[in-house]
């Protein structure tokens, strides 16, 4: 199954064990260029969905296609080339502590076989986009959390991906810094990249008023074109949602 959409899930179920599946019978279609928030209480299955999308996980049942690849039939040797079309950002930044800011971003290019001059140009470009040109030689431990997340985002976009996946990118940041990161993600989206953000962070969802997909107990319960974080169904689960 492949289609023109950036992401297409049909009847997707993921079971880690015999208990209730982490994702059940999910249908979801995301077009190229969209900006989508995935919200839901803890344990709802948001991270599971994101892992599925970069093939860090396989479906137990159902059909899934991402960026033109059918992930049920993709060969192992093609997975690296598929991943080059996707930028991934995590809550804990995932930077290498003994490489500098510049080296961290360059690493993503070098390990895909990029040459020196191409790397130099693209790293500089990515640093400019995320506003981190001032300290390229700092180690991750020497800059703030918000700055580390900017570097992680630079690393995710340096390969010029079609799709960007962010799992709780503001989870460790204060509200002001979070807002800055979200503005950066919006800027990246405006330049053509499809962006998916899984989050607990109500203010950032509300500030953008973009598409919101809500998951509860592994089921997609809401899909609003221009949504807010809170809604009747989520409101009932509010205790678990923050």
């Amino acid at each position, binding site marked *: 199954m492949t289609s023109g959409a950036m992401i297409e899930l049909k009847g997707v179920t993921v079971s880690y064990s015999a208990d209730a599946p982490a994702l059940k019978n999910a249908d979801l279609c995301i077009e190229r260029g969209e900006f989508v928030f995935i919200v839901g209480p803890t344990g709802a299955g948001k991270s599971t969905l994101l892992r599925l999308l*970069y093939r860090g996980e396989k479906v137990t049942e159902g059909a899934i296609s991402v960026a033109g690849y059918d992930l049920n039939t993709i060969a192992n040797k093609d997975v*690296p080339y598929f991943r080059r079309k996707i930028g991934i950002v995590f809550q804990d930044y995932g930077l*290498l502590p003994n490489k500098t800011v510049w080296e961290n971003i360059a690493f*993503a290019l070098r*390990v*895909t076989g990029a*040459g*020196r001059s191409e790397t130099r140009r693209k790293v500089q470009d990515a640093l400019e986009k995320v506003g981190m040109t001032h300290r390229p030689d700092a180690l991750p431990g020497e800059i703030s959390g918000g700055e580390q997340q900017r570097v992680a985002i630079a690393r995710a976009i340096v*390969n010029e991906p079609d799709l960007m996946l962010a799992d709780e990118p503001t989870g460790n940041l204060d509200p002001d810094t979070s807002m800055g990161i979200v503005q950066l993600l919006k800027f990246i989206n405006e330049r053509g990249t499809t962006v998916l953000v899984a989050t607990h962070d109500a203010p950032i969802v509300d500030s953008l008023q973009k598409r919101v997909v809500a998951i509860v107990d592994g089921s997609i319960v809401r899909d609003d074109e221009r949504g807010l974080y809170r809604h009747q169904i989520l409101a009932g689960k509010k205790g678990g949602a923050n």
Partner: protein
Amino acid sequence: MNPSSILFLLHEGYLNVRRNGLMTFAALGTVAVMLTVLGGSIWSVYRISEYAQHQPQTFNEVDAFMNTSSERDDTLAVMDRVKKLPDASVVHLVTREQAWQDITHQDPTLTESMPDDPLPDKLEIETRDAKNVQHLADLLRDKNAFPELEAVTDAGAEVRMMLAFARLVKLIGGGASLGLFIATMFIVYNTIRLTVFARRREIRIMQLVGATSWFIRIPLLLEGLFHGVVGAAVASIIVLFGGRHIAQFVEQLHSPLIGDVPTQATPLRVAACLILIGSFVGLTGSYLSIHRYLKHV
């Protein structure tokens, strides 16, 4: 793959080695010791078998020479009688013509200077059991029973002992070498496993940004290769140095048994062989280790 990528991979491999500092040192030391013992035993076994091959007779064999005056029919008659002896298992006839040819082949100048074939027919007799060599030789030397035989030679007691010893060394040395080979590979396997564990963040990121599995493997394979080659180089030096001392010691014994046996195992060949074994062990050990890890991610 472009040259700049190759440089990058080499650099990453070098970073592995350097970052693992003490562990690299420990692994190198262990691999070197293992390969020294391995190389030492392989070399001893090889050298001893060279000595053994150089002996004129194998230890369960008796040679009987006919009188030069006897005819071929006499030889065949004696051969029949020898075959019936309970101690003899295989009797092989080497005719004087064959012997002459062999010598001509080995050393033409020697036969040229001789007008005629002075050689007797020879019977090579294998005993059923090495213990009976002495008994069989004594029987054949009895002039009453075998007046047609001019001379009977068997490997002397010392030679027999040395050859038996050589066999033992081959057996034990061969087994020990195999064990050491596997143990060395296991050490590299474990070292690389620790490296892989120490680098799991890098590997994870490489996988997420779309590095191919070969790009992930190469620096780690290089590290395994480094352990194997450097360990083997150190081992070669120790083996060759030790080997020279042992050779000098054996020489000064002036034993007629050992004599001056030339060897095919030149220092260059010994070192090349060890480095080949080291590279193989290093690459295989690290490959297995990475393979196991990458499968589990």
